[in-house]
């Protein structure tokens, strides 16, 4: 059969295996007594070649004991209700199934791997497809449910002889169903909420820990930079790069180093310009954006022009920083790129500068926008770009 108890007993007593099996089956069918004895024997007799019994292993399994007690008490409750409703043979059958169920739960959790494999094979039809790696808990649940169902059916079948007595059972079943229907979703929700809360807490802790770690590493970098200030350009770009990464990670929730490459909003695009220009030209870009909206082809063109202006300031102005300011208003988006570099005389523009102004102008004009370049020698340059917003995208995307 299942646990090899009959075979083991036959070895010990010298009786035939088949005789013992028959005895078990007959006593099980008559009163359930045989099943209980079988399970108890399975629990307390050591298997061939093993020194410890399942029962001794089960002593350390508090969860298993709890589960066994729960399953047994549940079954006992059902039987008790049956007894209270005066359903015939209950008195004689009550304790062996309870013992058997509790014992089976313990066996399930504490049997040796071989035996668990046997159990799994036995319960396979119940579980349907038991793929490898199926959590054993589910199997346990289904087994218990199946046994309870079986017990219920047996009771019902017995009572079928007396139709009048079927009614109380139906009532009890309906009450159970009502309780489950009423409280089931609530239990589920509590369980789910608990899990979500725990996950959120774990995440928050993880984040706080990481934040402090990054903070420390950045501080150390800064100390190092102070001591090795002989290559200012590189020191600045290094410091800026790590600062930027840290900021976007701490305040925007993006992992360091995840430069998405493609922005979908205006402020994202401004940040991207900041990152690229700082990385490629070793200059500080103070990027500030007010308001936000989704990008469309017009605004992408605006950003491309802003990028060109920023790169130009980085290349030619000689200033150590560039201010990049973008503002989204209901009917227009403006971007200002300003440096305090050497500037130039607009009337005597060198060819490369003229190139900038013209290409930026052309870019903006093609899309219905405008660009102005103001520059004073010795004081710096400011490029102002404005793009009107079309009616279709007038509602701000950040509306509360």
């Amino acid at each position, binding site marked *: 059969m299942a646990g090899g108890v009959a075979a083991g007993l036959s070895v010990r007593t010298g009786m035939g295996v088949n005789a013992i099996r028959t005895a078990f089956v007959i006593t099980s069918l008559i009163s359930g007594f045989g099943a209980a004895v079988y399970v108890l024997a399975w629990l307390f007799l050591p298997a061939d070649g093993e020194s410890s019994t399942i029962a001794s292993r089960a002593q350390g399994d508090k969860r298993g004991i709890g589960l066994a007690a729960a399953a047994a008490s549940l079954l006992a409750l059902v039987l008790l209700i049956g007894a209270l409703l005066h359903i015939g043979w209950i008195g004689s059958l009550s304790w062996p199934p309870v013992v058997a169920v509790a014992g089976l739960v313990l066996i399930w959790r504490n049997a040796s791997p071989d035996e668990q494999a046997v159990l799994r094979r036995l319960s396979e039809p119940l579980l349907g497809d038991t793929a490898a790696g199926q959590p054993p808990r589910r199997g346990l649940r289904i087994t218990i449910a199946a046994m309870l169902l079986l017990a219920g059916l047996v009771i019902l079948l017995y009572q079928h002889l007396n139709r009048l007595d079927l009614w109380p059972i139906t009532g009890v079943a309906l009450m159970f169903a009502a309780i489950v229907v009423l409280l089931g979703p609530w239990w589920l929700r509590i369980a789910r909420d608990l899990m979500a809360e725990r996950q959120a807490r774990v995440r928050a802790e993880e984040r706080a820990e990481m934040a402090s770690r990054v903070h420390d590493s950045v501080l150390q970098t800064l100390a190092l930079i102070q001591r090795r200030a002989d290559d200012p350009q590189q020191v600045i770009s290094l410091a800026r790069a790590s600062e930027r990464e840290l900021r976007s990670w701490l305040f925007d929730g993006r992992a360091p180093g995840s430069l998405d490459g493609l922005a979908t909003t205006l402020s994202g695009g401004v940040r991207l310009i900041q990152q690229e220009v700082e990385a490629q030209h070793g200059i500080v870009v*103070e990027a*500030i954006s007010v308001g936000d909206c989704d990008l469309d082809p017009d605004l992408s063109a605006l950003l491309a022009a802003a990028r060109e202006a920023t790169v130009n300031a980085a290349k030619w102005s000689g200033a150590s920083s560039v201010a990049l300011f973008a503002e989204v208003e209901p009917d227009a988006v403006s971007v200002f790129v*300003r440096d305090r570099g050497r500037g130039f005389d607009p009337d005597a523009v060198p060819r490369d500068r003229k190139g900038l102004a013209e290409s930026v102008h052309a870019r903006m004009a093609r899309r219905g926008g405008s660009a102005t370049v103001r520059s004073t020698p010795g004081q710096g340059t400011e490029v102002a770009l404005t793009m009107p917003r079309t009616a279709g995208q007038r509602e701000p995307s950040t509306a509360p």
Partner: protein
Amino acid sequence: MSERRPSVFIVDDHGLFRSGVRSELGDQVEVVGEADDVQPAITGIARCEPDVVLLDVHLPGGGGHDVVSEITKSHPQVRFLALSASDAPEDVIAVIRSGARGYVTKTISGAELVDAIFRVAAGDAVFSPRLAGFVLDAFASAQPGQLVQPSFDPELDQLTPRERDVLRLIARGYTYKEIGRELFISAKTVESHVSSVLRKLQLSTRHQLTRWAAERRLN
């Protein structure tokens, strides 16, 4: 401007940064003390009574705004200039609303910092480009037309067009002098606009600004 060297108290939890600021300030100001946390800062400032406190927004024992609100109760003449490496808008707004006269980022140059200290000591407000951007954003998202809870005094919930112009120019990297030239007003008028914005920031309904800051953080 240089009638007298203002006395300065530095509050920052990083010793490295405190000594860096000290050496940058040199003897243009008189550094009278420093502290590394909320409690030592409160006792130290109460003892030294400096003109200006350079205050880190983030401190281990609480926010910098705790220091501001505690000190302004007993020593209203002490002025605060918030100094932060953080860009989290709610932090900045919190310290400004508790009564700081200005906010600058820690990447500010030594000369600019000295200038900011002198201006705060003289009772002016100092906005970094970034703070100007924050404020524009905060008041833009509390614009009329959207359904928001008005304050007792609706004027506090909006910036005048002139104030918006000034803030825009600050955000674009202009100095007060350059802004004055741009808008054909005196630098003193620019300063009074900024002070007025500061007052609105401190008095406007908490509801909208905190909600704005919360939303901003989520983005």
